[in-house]
């Protein structure tokens, strides 16, 4: 009877989780969705606590207290610019949790074997997947976190035979798993732990060669692995709620990584094994012609301000540079000043701008930019021809015309903004360096492009002041 109640509660919780995600289809319903998700989680936890297997509560209470304290601690005050790091970090915890549960389950399984119980192949196989994916997600997410934080170099780290090695390790782990499934009762423990260790190592090795600019795909993919690990736990524990939630998480991660790859016009395989901008692609590219003698218009803040003051319509294109210099509030202030002068300001958001899906939207929302002023790539791309000025704030690849014209460019085929169609372009950039994608940007050398070099936030504040002074 008690077991039935628990299962019914899990069913209710699963439905609430689906409704929670359903709520995220619009900003108005989002918060209600979150509430439903919280409710579902509460129901699921209470139901678990009344299960007959749970006999002692000291460790449970300790874990819940520690977890809640840390969870509240890192989430209450976290600045929005740190969201990608925080997501990577939490995937790491998710991975850790699943792989630890897997190890605990394995210990229990061994107890059963010692007692002479039958062990099902399904639990052995599912446990293997769980622990392998969990540990891979754990170290992979730590690496992604390190790259985002700048502790580990954001540039791809590669060496010869790297992919062969990784793929070899992957199949090695798979072979170990296959043996354990074939001989569930007699396979030695070292196999299980070697598989676990391979997962840990692969997480590190697989993320090392991926560049910082590809992080949106990696984070989404890790999201999906964390989900699949939870699914595997569900198979091992015969728990439907774990399978359902894991599948929701997994499909969300997969969908996002597909969207991100599509927005870069690159395949999964290319992101994972391609090691963008390592030199093997840029070396062959004729974009080198832009390098020395090519001249660009370096403009002062006053010049740029004059252009903006004369504009009736402005499109702002934010990029990772805006997040780095925390310039979202300064962008909003400038836009407000422009709007006051009767100028129309829109924001163009590229799917891969920033370091995670939706990164720019959250930053601008934080700065109180209304979300109906934000536009996706295909919604705004025709508007550039009718626009007086485009303000590029720390974006680079997403405004590179080479993606449309230069077949040798590593970003060729990636959908980009038609910035060069507008009357004038103002680019805020730290320096004329190509950045680590290593791709030269023709846009910066266009005759109607003004380069304002320096910290984006300072420049924006300067522009805003110049506008007040230059005003009527």
């Amino acid at each position, binding site marked *: 009877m008690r077991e039935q109640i628990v299962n019914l509660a899990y069913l209710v919780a699963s439905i609430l989780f*689906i409704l929670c995600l359903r709520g995220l289809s619009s900003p108005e319903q989002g918060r209600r969705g979150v509430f439903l*998700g919280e409710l579902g989680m509460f129901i699921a936890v209470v139901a678990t606590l009344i299960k007959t297997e*749970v006999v002692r509560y000291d460790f*449970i209470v300790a874990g819940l207290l520690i977890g809640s304290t840390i*969870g509240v601690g890192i989430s209450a005050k976290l600045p929005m610019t740190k969201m990608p790091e925080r997501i990577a970090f*939490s995937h790491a915890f998710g991975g850790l949790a699943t792989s630890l549960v897997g190890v605990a389950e394995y210990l229990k399984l061994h107890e059963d074997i010692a007692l002479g119980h039958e062990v099902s192949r399904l639990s052995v196989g599912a446990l293997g997947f769980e622990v392998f994916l969990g540990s891979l997600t754990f170290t992979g997410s730590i690496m992604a976190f390190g790259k985002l934080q700048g502790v580990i170099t954001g540039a791809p780290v590669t060496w010869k035979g790297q992919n062969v090695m990784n793929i070899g390790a992957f199949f090695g782990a798979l072979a170990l798993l296959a043996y354990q499934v074939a001989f569930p009762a007699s396979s030695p423990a070292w196999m299980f732990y070697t598989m676990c260790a391979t997962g840990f190592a692969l997480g590190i090795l697989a993320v090392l060669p991926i560049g910082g600019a590809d992080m949106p795909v990696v984070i989404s993919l890790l999201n999906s692995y964390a989900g699949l690990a939870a699914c595997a736990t569900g198979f091992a524990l015969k728990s439907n709620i*774990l399978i359902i939630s894991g599948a929701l998480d997994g499909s969300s991660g997969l969908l996002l990584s597909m969207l991100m790859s599509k927005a870069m016009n690159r395949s999964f395989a290319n992101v994972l094994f391609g090691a963008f901008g390592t030199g093997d692609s840029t070396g062959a590219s004729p974009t080198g012609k832009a390098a020395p003698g090519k001249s660009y218009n370096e403009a002062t803040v006053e010049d740029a301000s004059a252009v903006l003051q004369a504009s009736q319509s402005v499109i702002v294109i934010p990029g990772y540079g805006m997040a780095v210099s925390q310039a979202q509030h300064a962008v909003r202030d400038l836009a407000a000043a422009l709007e006051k002068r009767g100028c129309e300001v829109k924001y163009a958001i590229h799917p891969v701008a920033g370091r995670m899906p939706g990164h720019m939207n959250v930053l601008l929302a934080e700065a109180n930019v209304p979300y*109906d002023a934000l536009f996706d790539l295909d919604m705004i791309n025709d508007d550039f021809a009718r626009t007086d000025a485009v303000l590029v704030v720390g974006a680079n690849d997403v405004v590179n015309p080479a993606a449309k014209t230069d077949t040798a460019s590593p970003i060729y085929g990636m959908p980009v903004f038609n910035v060069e169609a507008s009357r004038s372009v103002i680019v805020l950039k730290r320096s004329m360096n190509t950045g680590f994608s290593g791709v030269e940007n023709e846009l910066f050398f266009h005759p109607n492009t003004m380069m304002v070099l320096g910290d984006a936030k300072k420049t924006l504040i300067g522009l805003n002041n110049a506008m007040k002074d230059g005003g009527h």
Partner: protein
Amino acid sequence: MSSDLIFGLYIFALATFVGYQVISRVPALLHTPLMSGTNAISGISLVGSLVAAGSHHGLVANVLGCIAVASATINVVGGFMITDRMLKMFKKGPQGSGANAAKKA
């Protein structure tokens, strides 16, 4: 093949399908809240961790379970909290600014 596996696969396939349908309706605008929201939901591994932490299969299992409970709780509590914090920030323009506003979501 065991019937448990088949049954599990049924659930998995259907849930993936539902997940795909629901999530493809989430606009790009809300992709970051989506990630932190699914992250919170994936904290449902608590269900497994709690059992491990509270079981009678030896101290090692309990300690591992306890760490797992803590990790999963960080995701659940932190994930829901930060998702809510983000969603609170998304506001419509003062006058709904323009006809294309409605199409955005």
